């Protein structure tokens, strides 16, 4: 018997409730004190097609999914066909007995067919065939001998907590029936079990977009504007849902150009502002990004990547836009690029992005992707330290126009919006006070903010240097977040950035347990960096293998461009599927042969 270490996969057509059932089951398992990692895969269609949801369970925190599956819940025949090969020997395939499934071929693969009268139970016990999903999840619980009360709790939460809520009660009757029936029939054949951890704390089940949302709220962002685009939409939606409570202005604009410009306008007035999008929308924002750079306006852009080019694979994942984000926009202007790798990092670095933006008065791009945005993990509540974020808020050289005394004092000798200073940062007083009346421009401008109609070389040099030198200070004072994981004296270092964190970290554990000496070097901070320091870090590594979710190993190129160091090999994945520990381990063996 294997306790609390398995993967359960649900599959079916869009509209069959694969995701909601998966989420519900994951929540129930997390509430039992177990750690979960949930990843989904769906097609760009509302009905039909094929979607799946995969939940990995363990007693330790999980950072990625794995490829082997132990129990498959098939809502349709295609799921059995497509995913049986992923099951380990002795794995179970649970499905409604109305589906046409070739049991003998499953048995021939050493799998256990587990037909169940799910539809019948839903109809006869619950009086509604829609309750089939409840029956399926409860049956899975029965097969794993998982305490059904956790599933019941989630049902109550979803259908009404009040005792005597008709629908909840009927669902619970269905659940009990399916649970008992499945347990009787199959529990004794199935090796993997789920057992609650007594006294475990209640953990949050949360995905990357939600963590970004919490970071946005914690940072005091007040203006959110954007245009829906997968996988960024759920962030916009989450914040729209919190707008009334937290006094946010959330706008769905006519396009992404307007989305970022709303933010620049709001930030010009002294409000923290954020827009979120994916590659296509970011492409539309590019000209305005340059405007933010020129006018030194702090805005935060979340770039939730998906594979391109063009509409690419709209519901899949990839890390293809790194070099684009680094170089997007005509002309040269300062910006920062951050790429959190975990749920916790999404939270903290999102909040940090607003500080960097305001301190250096420049745009900050926070990069995630579909994998990080939508994968769920169970995380300790304490991991989200709102008080620490509140203490860390740094608005830089900002005085708001209604802060009468401060403005009066600061403007005693006049006010110039783009005053030339040693570190390039000028006092920012948003419009509204009689002592700070000024105009700004996307055209090259004077320290006063007026357009320099003569386009003089002298003024140009002063202003370019002023803006660009902010990066030097930023790299020194505020950037440089990277992390090693694994043995210090590793023979191989897996170099990665952003969402690859989880899969690479888990790969390191797998590889080391197989007798290799491998560690991970992960970067959250991409730009600006103190490159000499990064070069020294790389010099401490032996064989360096870049692991990235794109074709050309973009981060590795960025490093080479800035440090002259070149990783010894690369592992890339660009098929739209997330990196995972098994894939990385297998590819590493091939990569090392080539070194």
């Amino acid at each position: 018997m294997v306790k609390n270490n398995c993967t359960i996969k649900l599959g079916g057509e869009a509209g069959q409730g694969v995701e909601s059932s998966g989420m519900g089951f994951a929540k129930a398992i997390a509430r039992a004190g177990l750690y979960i990692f949930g990843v989904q895969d769906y097609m760009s269609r509302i009905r039909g097609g094929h979607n799946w949801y995969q939940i990995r369970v363990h007693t330790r925190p999980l950072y990625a999914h794995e490829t082997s599956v132990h129990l498959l819940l098939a809502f349709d025949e295609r799921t059995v066909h497509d995913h049986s090969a992923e099951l380990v020997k002795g794995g179970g395939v649970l499905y409604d007995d109305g589906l046409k499934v070739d049991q003998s071929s499953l048995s021939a693969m050493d799998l256990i067919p587990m037909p169940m009268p799910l539809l019948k139970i839903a109809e006869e016990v619950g009086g509604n065939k829609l309750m089939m999903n409840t029956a399926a999840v409860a049956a899975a619980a029965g097969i794993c001998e998982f305490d059904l009360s956790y599933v019941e709790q989630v049902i109550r939460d979803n259908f009404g907590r009040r005792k005597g809520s008709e629908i909840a009660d009927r669902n619970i009757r269905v659940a009990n029936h399916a649970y008992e029936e499945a347990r009787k029939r199959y529990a004794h054949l199935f090796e993997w079990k789920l057992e609650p951890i007594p006294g475990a704390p209640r953990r949050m089940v949360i995905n990357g977009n939600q963590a970004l949302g919490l970071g946005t709220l914690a940072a005091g962002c007040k203006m959110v504007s954007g245009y829906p685009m997968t996988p960024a939409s759920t962030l916009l939606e989450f914040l729209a849902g919190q707008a009334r409570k937290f006094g946010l202005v959330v706008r769905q604009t006519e396009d992404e150009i307007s989305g970022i410009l709303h933010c620049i306008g709001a930030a010009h007035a002294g409000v923290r502002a954020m827009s979120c999008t994916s590659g296509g929308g970011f492409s539309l924002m590019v000209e305005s990004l340059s405007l933010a750079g020129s006018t030194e306006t702090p805005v935060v852009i979340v770039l939730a990547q998906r594979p391109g080019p063009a509409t690419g694979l709209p519901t899949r994942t990839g890390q293809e836009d790194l070099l684009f984000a680094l170089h997007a926009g005509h002309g040269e202007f300062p910006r920062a690029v951050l790429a959190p790798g975990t749920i916790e990092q999404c939270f903290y670095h999102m909040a940090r992005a607003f500080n960097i933006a305001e301190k250096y008065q420049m745009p900050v791009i926070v990069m995630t992707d579909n994998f990080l945005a939508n994968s769920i993990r169970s995380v300790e509540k304490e991991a989200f330290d709102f008080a620490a974020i509140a203490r860390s808020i740094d608005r830089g050289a900002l005085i708001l126009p209604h802060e009468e005394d401060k403005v009066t004092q600061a403007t005693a000798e006049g006010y110039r919006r783009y005053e030339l200073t040693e570190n390039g940062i000028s006092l920012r007083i948003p419009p509204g006070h009689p002592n700070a009346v000024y105009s700004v421009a996307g055209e090259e401008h004077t320290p006063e903010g007026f357009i320099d109609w003569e386009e003089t070389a002298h003024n140009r040099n002063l202003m370019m240097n002023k803006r660009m030198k902010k990066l030097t200070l930023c790299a020194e004072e505020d950037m440089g977040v990277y992390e090693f994981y694994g043995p210090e004296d590793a023979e191989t270092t897996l170099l990665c950035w952003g969402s690859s964190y989880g899969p690479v970290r888990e790969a390191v554990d797998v590889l080391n347990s197989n007798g290799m000496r491998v560690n991970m070097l992960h970067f959250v901070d991409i730009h600006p960096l103190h490159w000499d320091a990064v070069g020294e870090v790389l010099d401490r590594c032996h064989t360096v293998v870049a692991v990235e979710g794109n074709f050309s190993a973009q981060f590795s190129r960025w490093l080479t461009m800035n440090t002259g160091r070149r990783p010894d090999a690369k592992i890339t994945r660009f098929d739209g599927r997330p990196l995972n520990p098994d894939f990385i381990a297998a590819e590493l063996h091939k990569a090392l042969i080539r070194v």
Partner: protein
Amino acid sequence: MAAPVTLTMKDLQSPVEPTWCPGCGDFGILNAVKRAMIQLKLPPHQVIYFSGIGCGSKLPDYVRANGFNSLHGRPVPLAQGFRLAHHDMKVVVVDGDGDSYGIGGNHWLHIMRRNPDITHIVQDNMVYGLTKGQYAPTSMKGYVSTTSPEGTIEYPVNPIAIALAAGATFVARGFSGDPKHLADLIAKGMEHKGYALIDVFQPCVIFNRVNTYDWFRERVYKLEDEPGYDPHDLNKAWEKAHEWGERIPIGLFYVNEETPTLEEQIPALAQKPLYQQDIPPPVEMLEGLKEIFV
């Protein structure tokens, strides 16, 4: 920050000299904008002008007030973001026909259905001035320019009709050759609670040799001089919007004071302007969010 009792042209004088061609219609618009501020006793720090890119879009630097010279076609969304963050500021967009009727046309359609309290002055010279004379969305059919050597084959945009159709709550047209009348329209637009479009006939004396001061003077007449014209009547306004030729109406085509503004409908703005609100939210309130996820 009380408004000064009197405001003079001198108070609105910018240190920057206009670079417009002598005789350009944009001078009349600049003059009218200043007059409107004086008429409304609007001190410079309580107004912000957002402009695009073009000859007329240079205006913010030429009046002592807050300004933001942005990108070609983009001042409209920029102004909306600002307005939502600082809604006790007078927010004015001044841009070209290329800006809002061309490259930024989508933004223009959408600001009209949202009705934020923003005044929008479009410098309609029916040509692209700054880029040296190509045809504009408002150029009349057959207009000969460097990019239409045989005359345009497109029909011009009708800004007044589009604004009426899109739900604009204040739709007017002025003529820069009559800055007093124009100032009055701009002042009315600024006082209007909601989006106000003021399309302005603005002769480009260098590139547009068709729609000259004389051409306009021979044709324009004021709607307020039309006996019985009521700008609350949408059907009448629609009819007047299509009058073009021997006689061309200027003045207030349409006004509707009933439609709520965008700002009024946003709960976060009910108490005080966004920029004045304390951040971050109370930690206890944030902590409460965790319950969504357990």
